[in-house]
């Protein structure tokens, strides 16, 4: 029997892959060959050591991270409606609705003209003081603190608020969204990502940590006067703190 054949039998023996005849052949070879015996013992010892390597618990938030990431990729197909479909529906509507729509359209155009052309500074207010101006049903705040800058947008929905957060961090930054789960419900996590560090999504707290890009898009609903607190803290010392009214 060649050395190569013995080597194969030894390896297959370790994996419990030998027939009784092959096993007897190996045993005979081992009795006659000291270096084969040594190899057999060493590999057996290696197999035992490898099999006894412990299983490690994954990070506690891994399941939540995966679930949030998977949900952020779910696309709900919406029926496509063309401009012509919309116009047809409008012309088919009662007169009062047609005039009402035209009037509302005029108001929206006027407001947009005022905010972006006549008096653009009314749309966004920035800084550590974290003040904002209500823009129709959306609030936008700029975060511009030492070590991090970005935008926080809160959009009023029929049932609550959609929060979108985009931040670029030059220094290690922790962004924490906290809420009282007995008053506020996290309805939807469309996106939670932190390029430079871990993400935690637990009941009552969403936390992104690290340097680089941080972003999240979340939907909340809540009881009257409920709120979500958004806090940004950079290692460099910059802080941002804002309560967003959910209801």
């Amino acid at each position, binding site marked *: 029997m060649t050395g190569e054949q013995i080597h*194969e039998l030894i390896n297959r023996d370790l994996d419990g892959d030998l027939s009784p005849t092959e096993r007897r052949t190996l045993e005979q070879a081992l009795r006659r060959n000291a270096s084969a015996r040594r190899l057999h013992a060493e*590999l057996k010892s*290696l197999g035992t050591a*490898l*099999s006894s390597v412990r*299983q*490690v618990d*994954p990070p506690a938030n891994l399941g939540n*991270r995966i679930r949030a990431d998977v*949900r952020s990729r779910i696309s709900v197909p919406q029926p496509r409606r063309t401009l012509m479909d919309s116009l047809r529906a409008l012309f088919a509507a009662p007169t009062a609705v047609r005039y009402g729509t035209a009037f509302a359209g005029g108001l929206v155009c006027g407001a947009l003209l005022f905010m972006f052309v006549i008096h653009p500074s009314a749309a966004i207010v920035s800084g550590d003081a974290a003040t904002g101006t209500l823009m129709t049903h959306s609030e936008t705040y700029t975060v511009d603190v030492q070590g991090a800058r970005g935008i926080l947008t809160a959009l009023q929905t029929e049932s609550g608020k959609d929060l979108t957060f985009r931040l670029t961090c030059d220094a290690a930054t922790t962004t924490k969204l906290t809420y009282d789960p007995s008053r506020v419900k996290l309805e939807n996590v469309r996106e939670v990502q932190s390029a430079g560090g871990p993400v935690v999504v637990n009941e009552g707290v969403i936390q992104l940590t690290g340097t680089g890009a941080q972003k999240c898009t979340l939907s909340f609903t809540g009881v009257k006067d409920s709120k979500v607190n958004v806090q940004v803290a950079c290692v460099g010392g910059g802080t941002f703190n804002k309560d967003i009214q959910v209801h």
Partner: protein
Amino acid sequence: MTEQSDEDLVRRCRAGEIKSFDQLVERHQRTIFNLALRMVRDSDDAADVSQSVFVKAYENLERFDPQYRFFSWLYRIAVNESLNALEQKKRFEGLDGNDLAAETADEKDDETVREERRIQDGLMMLNVDQRAVVVLKHIQGLSYREIGQVLDIPEKTVKSRLFSARQSLKDILKKKGVRRYDRRTDS
């Protein structure tokens, strides 16, 4: 109530029941994390790999062939994602000081822990093909056939790769001075 099989959960998930996928995540995240950990060593990287494994699995669920076992398919994605992570990490090699040691830092630094660390170091010195077969065989407990399915190679190749990997690992551990692989048994 009997536990639903992976294949049942996959079917439900394909029908749009996202909660069935949550159950699959719950069921397999620990195994996938450990497979990734032994492939890439770093705990944070292993968590990132695990996350992208499940996201890829979800996005490609329609392509899953039910004639294979779900976990084999998941392992296959995990091995590929681990290789991608290692490839990306090559660019930043030298910057990373966080390894399995960090994860066990608060544990008593006894002989078992030290030996596990040496074994992990030894695994990292194997080439990735060899490392994959050793991890799948000895740490995940897969058969030759299952390893072949995961890595998409014939059983014969699994065996020859595994045998040479074990020989290399034994030699590496000997060089690192692990006595149990250097003892004489014929004296």
